[in-house]
């Protein structure tokens, strides 16, 4: 495995051309993510958090500012930067193991090695026994596990996730959060997770980045100091939650009910 590198974002600006004028999706976003760090981004919808991810993985170009991984400006997609989407986006014509194998870049590794890597990742995401299943035979949570495995087979330096558990039911979501922590602790990669679930962000991340919308800017970065596994009912957890909600709704002057 390669040595993890720092992700450096500096003065990032992105505008979309729309019919009724330009939309300033991101404005002067600067963020540094340390190697191996787990960072969550929360924000209301339309705050540009997904755009930020798409820029980092290279799905969209045409921005001003710097996005550097290990000191090098990023240029287009790279297997060093993996991505998991909200929908699992598995190919329905491939089985779970074939979908995971699709993630592999096929330069100079033998079939046997490939098979080993795939099997290892099937075990990593706890899907042993479902390797030969087609996506439509798997539950939503299982599909997302395959998707995570597919993003991890190349041992990416940075793994980005765009609301990966957003489409799952509440119970599966809690389960997947715990599972993902375990996976992250085994794989030790840098993680950038976009979510609209404040609980999820605090439960998982080392730092929570709060974004505000129109134009999308970082309004606050909150460090979560509690050790993992975190207790969602602890006082510290509630305090952080309160702080984030305050930040998210500061423009509305609203006191939001947050349940402790």
């Amino acid at each position: 495995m390669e040595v993890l590198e720092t992700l450096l974002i500096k003065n990032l600006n992105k505008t979309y051309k729309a019919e009724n004028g330009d939309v300033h999706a991101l404005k002067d976003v600067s963020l540094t993510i340390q190697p191996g760090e787990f960072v969550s981004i929360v924000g209301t919808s339309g705050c540009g958090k997904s755009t930020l991810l798409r820029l980092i993985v290279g799905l969209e170009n045409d921005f001003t500012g710097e996005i550097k991984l290990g000191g090098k400006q990023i240029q287009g997609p790279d297997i060093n930067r993996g991505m998991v989407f909200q929908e699992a986006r598995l190919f329905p014509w491939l089985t779970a193991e074939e979908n995971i194998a699709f993630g592999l870049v096929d330069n100079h590794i033998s079939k046997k090695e490939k098979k080993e890597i795939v099997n290892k990742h099937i075990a990593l995401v706890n899907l042993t026994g479902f390797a030969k299943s087609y996506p439509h035979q798997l539950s939503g949570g299982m599909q997302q596990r395959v998707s995570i495995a597919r993003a991890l087979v190349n041992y990416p330096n940075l793994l980005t996730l765009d609301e990966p558990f957003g489409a799952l039911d509440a119970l599966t979501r809690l389960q997947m959060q715990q599972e993902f922590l375990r996976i992250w602790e085994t794989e030790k990669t840098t993680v950038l997770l976009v979510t609209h679930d404040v609980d999820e962000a605090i439960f998982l991340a080392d730092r929570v980045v709060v974004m505000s919308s129109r134009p999308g800017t970082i309004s606050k970065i909150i460090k979560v100091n509690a050790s993992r596994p975190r207790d969602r009912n602890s006082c510290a957890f509630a305090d952080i939650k309160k702080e984030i909600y305050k930040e998210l709704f500061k423009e509305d002057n609203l006191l939001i009910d947050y349940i402790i």
Partner: protein
Amino acid sequence: MSLINSYNPIIVIKNITKTAKNTIFNLSWLDSVYLKILVPAILLVTWESACRLGYLKPLILPSPTAIVQAFERLIKSGELFRHLGISLFRILQGYALGAFFGITLGILIGIFKRIDQGSSVVISFLRPIPIFAWIPVIILWLGIDESTKVTIIALGCFWPILLNVMAGIKHVDKKYLEVARILEKSPYQTLVKVILPSALPSIFTGLRVGIGMAWMCVVAAEVIASTSGIGFLISYSREMLQPDVMFVGVFSIGIVGLIIDRIFKLLEMHFIKWNVNTKRKR
């Protein structure tokens, strides 16, 4: 005894399921088979009795039994299978040509914007012209050779295949393409592993419509310009005043068409196992 008189929920549930079964919308398997057979049976009996009672002249519409007898006669003499064989061989050649060009061009047009733009006017101009309008043209060019029939079939099945392949390739979900981009797949890998499999259901639809079209075209070509094949059998028996033979020809087209369609459906289910939609239709 008072227990029996009291409200018994189990009986109520039983009644509900019983009434549900009796509605038209909830036919049991046996009922649906029975209904499927019932309608053709009534038609056949009516037809046969109309012939026996002299309402229908055998020269206009022979009775079902006469047609069945003609069937037997033609099968025994080998005439039916000879003509069918000739027609099927023509289809095989024409269909192979039409499918080859339809799939190749469809993929090229679906992938390359420039080819798509360049060909769009030509395609929208040529496509609405019915195949029957081309038959005289093709006869003028190629004579009444075997190649004429093969060309007519190829042209006939080319269009539905081309259009379906084009649509299938163009409508590949952008989300899948993004996954391929993130995983740094080459254009070739993206085509083979993402675009083509995702277009496969469409391609199959094109192939199935195409084979139906080919079967129609061979008959048309043979009726107009041929001395063999199932279409020739039909037009020749009309000239010979053998309506029973004529109907043997007409109905065997239906039977073979049905068999071909079934084979394609089976192939589709075999090759596109992952497609949940095709499975449900079964």
